[in-house]
């Protein structure tokens, strides 16, 4: 190795130690701030957040197919007046409602909140004065963080698909008053920053089951904020990971391989 290369390697090593000592903690701190802010946008009790905010939304579809007035309290729809036209029988209007006794729980919100809480927990577990000694240690934490944040985001962005009979049997459907006829079902779910309402109608055409649906949606303001912050923090995590991966090319780098005084001052 010529002198230039040696010098470069020495500089890189110094930089690496700086990243472990200063940069990692500073980025984790920033991340913590963003994630706590994100947690405070959730309408449920979460990380020192008072919780239980209430919002009202009106969901309608264009040709007056369906109309739904929804009260969202925390992660549940505590009240809703629902009316929609039954397909192919244009004059029948089906009405039902959700009331306090049988709220419709949006599991996606609770899942996202729990994943977020877990992510904050990973950062809380790192003592501010802890001295990282290898990139593997940090990468493990980042990997856990990335996993939790990704799951939190996915919970909101990609609603889980459910079979129609599973939906019909669900506790949410049974809590409707009055109950819907057997060939009708409704569903509420979150998709990105929107609350979506769908009405399904089952019919039998030549012996095969056919499902028709019509839907309406509305934007939920706090969801946009939450998604924005989750995406931003995911990006910060990824950048820190990329930064560390640059150094992991030099496998023999571990803190302390140079001089101890540099590390623990």
């Amino acid at each position: 190795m010529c002198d230039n290369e040696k010098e470069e390697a020495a500089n890189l090593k110094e930089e690496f130690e700086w990243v472990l000592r200063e940069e990692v903690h500073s980025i984790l701190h920033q991340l913590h701030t963003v994630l706590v802010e994100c947690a405070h946008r959730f309408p449920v009790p979460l990380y020192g957040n008072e919780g239980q905010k209430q919002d009202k939304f009106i969901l309608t579809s264009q040709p007056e197919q369906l109309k739904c007035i929804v009260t969202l309290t925390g992660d549940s729809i505590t009240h809703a007046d629902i009316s929609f036209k039954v397909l192919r029988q244009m004059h029948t209007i089906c009405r039902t409602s959700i009331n306090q006794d049988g709220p419709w729980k949006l599991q996606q919100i609770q899942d996202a909140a729990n994943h977020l809480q877990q992510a904050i927990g990973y950062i809380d577990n790192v003592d501010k004065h802890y001295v990282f000694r290898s990139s593997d240690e940090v990468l493990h934490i980042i990997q856990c963080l990335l996993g939790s944040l990704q799951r939190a985001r996915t919970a909101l962005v990609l609603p889980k698909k459910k079979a129609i009979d599973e939906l019909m049997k669900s506790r949410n459907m049974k809590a409707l008053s009055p109950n819907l006829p057997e060939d009708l079902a409704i569903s509420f779910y979150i998709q990105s920053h929107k609350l979506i309402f769908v009405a399904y109608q089952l019919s039998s055409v030549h012996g095969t089951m056919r499902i028709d649906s019509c839907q309406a949606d509305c934007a939920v303001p706090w969801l946009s904020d939450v998604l924005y912050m989750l995406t931003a923090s995911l990006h910060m995590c990824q950048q820190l990971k990329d930064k560390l991966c640059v150094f992991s090319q030099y496998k023999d780098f571990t803190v302390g391989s140079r001089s101890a005084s540099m590390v623990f001052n």
Partner: protein
Amino acid sequence: MPGTNLIVPVVLWGKYAPTHCISSVYLSRDQKTLVTGCYDGQVCIWQVEPETLKMTPRCLLVGHTAPVTCISRASIIQDNNFIVTSSEAGEMCTWDLVDGKCRESVKITQVHTNIQAYHMCNSEDLRLFCNGYYAEILIMDPFSLELMFSLSSKMNPDWISALHVLRPSSRKDDVVLAISITGTVKVWSLLGHENKQSEPIYENESKQIRCLNALSLNCCAHNQRTVLIVCAKYCQIYDAGDFSVLCSITAPAGERWMSGDFMATDRVLVWSTEGKGYLYKLPANSVPDHKGFHGPTVAHDSPVLYGMLAHPDNKLLSCPPAMRLVATSSGGKQRRLLLRGDSHGVVSLWSVDDSAPLTQTVLTHAPLVTTSLDAAWAAMAPRPVGVLDQMHAPDEPEIKLTACIYLLAANRLVVGRDDGSIVIVNATHTVQLHLLHGTHQQLHDWPPHQLLLGHNGRVNCLLYPHHVHPRYDKSYLVSGGIDFAVCLWELYSGVLLHRFCVHGGEITQLSVPPPDCSPRIQKCICSVASDHSVTLLSLSERKCVTLASRHLFPVVTIKWRAADDFMVVATCDGAAYVWQMETAHLDRVLTGMMAEEVLAACDATAADELGGALAELQAGQANPALHFFRGLRHRNLNAMLTATQRGLQALQGGGGAGGGPGPLSEPAHSRRAPLTVQGFRANPKGKVPIIFEHGPKRGLQALQGGGGAGGGPGPLSEPAHSRRAPLTVQGFRANPKGNVFTDGS
């Protein structure tokens, strides 16, 4: 005739063990089998001698794509050799421990964090009680991996963070005791006739306690009156009667608790993230037999630490080790062992019963047994063979192999190494050298090899484009390295034709665009780098045609819409970037459902196009696989039957037709090859053990034939590989694109 399709895989592991950062551990009741799961998704089976507890790695199971979080036994029967594993991606598998085959696998949307196997009353075998990132408790069958029934909550439904199933001594039914992450303790009573169809089963009782994010919950087996709940910062003993706190133990400074259990009515073992076990004697108010039970906390009577289970050397770990307390019985002897598996792949075992509280001083106990994959490798004499061992003097350190491809037609093995060199050797000769005894082993510098020098640092990936499509020049070999460069080589002369330096990060993947792209793109290969950029590099023009570099997250896959000139780049955050190939114009960035749909649509068109390609081969009939699925969708049995027959014909005819470009001819072709070679990478940064798969008869014939043609070695004796392979690899297809390492058909 089963013999002709039998494939015998042989793994050349090399001198050093693969990385194994343990995420979960399990020891069978009879102390004969230890199982470790790791963060990269592999599961290692260890054979344990019940008397000496000597552990030998026996089998590496490949299939999970994410960290293995839970391992559980599958049956109540002592010598039933099945286990169930579950990963963070929601994959669950039932494995046969004897031959390492995956008997059943499912992928579910609910991800488990904990599984307790429990023998319910009214059921003939074990049921898995699972909790995780969902609000219910799922009860699953370990062999079919089907959901039997689930337990729901009425009060504050939330994720369950820990559960314990037990049978109260006075009763015949089973009781599930669980705590939600927000601290609601719940009790379900099971009668044994629950099923999927029954109405939701709600808790019988629930109580809110001040305990957030519990990690484990265990009821004392001796009196069933006290409960130990462990949280990261403290663990507490509760009275099961009214769930009031009796005493609390704070975690040592700088450590967090992970889990714990009762040793006796008055003693607990708790273990921490540092991988240490702590034994405490409980104060009188926490011991039901004592007259002071449930009394107020007395200042002089607090939990007393009387023993520690720790490693004498405090080696730096990159993550908290996986630990588990197991009760075993072997040779009529019951005992309890604390297991630990850490990030270096080291497994340790402590016997817990030996450490009774005798003195006032705190005794530190060293593990009974400690072993690791590295130790198993070091104990091998001779060391497990590596594919390029002939190139090193015995005392030299091995240069890690980092990439590998096998050129079927030329029967050459191309291996990229950590130092930037690429070695090309004759595959049969190499196999002969390492696995068969003969005079050729005495020959100096045999087999001859070719060395390509051009990369500065690790070679990450290799591509032989002609294999994928015959439109590429037969002599082109492409390699990508840590030095940000993609190199184009003339395979036969070993000349470096061109070095593409367009990426800003190390090259991670090389692939080939589909054959229906524009003529210019058809001459390109596609490369992906760690700076999240994707390029199309023209091999004929020797320049970069398209640089797509605005991705915020690592690239996962690349899909093609050749007809529209679109390249769709999927990144790990679930986004899809749609690029125009010719103009390098970023057409759209999609996220969420839209991204999923566009990616799925690319697959559909690709399938249709492949079907079309096959149609040319098969006189205007579409891809039988598509027909089969269409038949399945419409429940048309006849259509399915014809499709299956045609598919089988295509499989049988494909190889004979001379390896045309149809989609089915390629796998058929490789199945017929007497020898195939695959690199198998445990970890992106790890080295690559190499797997040879050969049919026993034709493969050996090929070996002998190859030897004769080489002119060097004389007669060959018995294969000696069975002795030399320390571990075998078994796999299942986790997803349609995953690799299968063995094929038992």
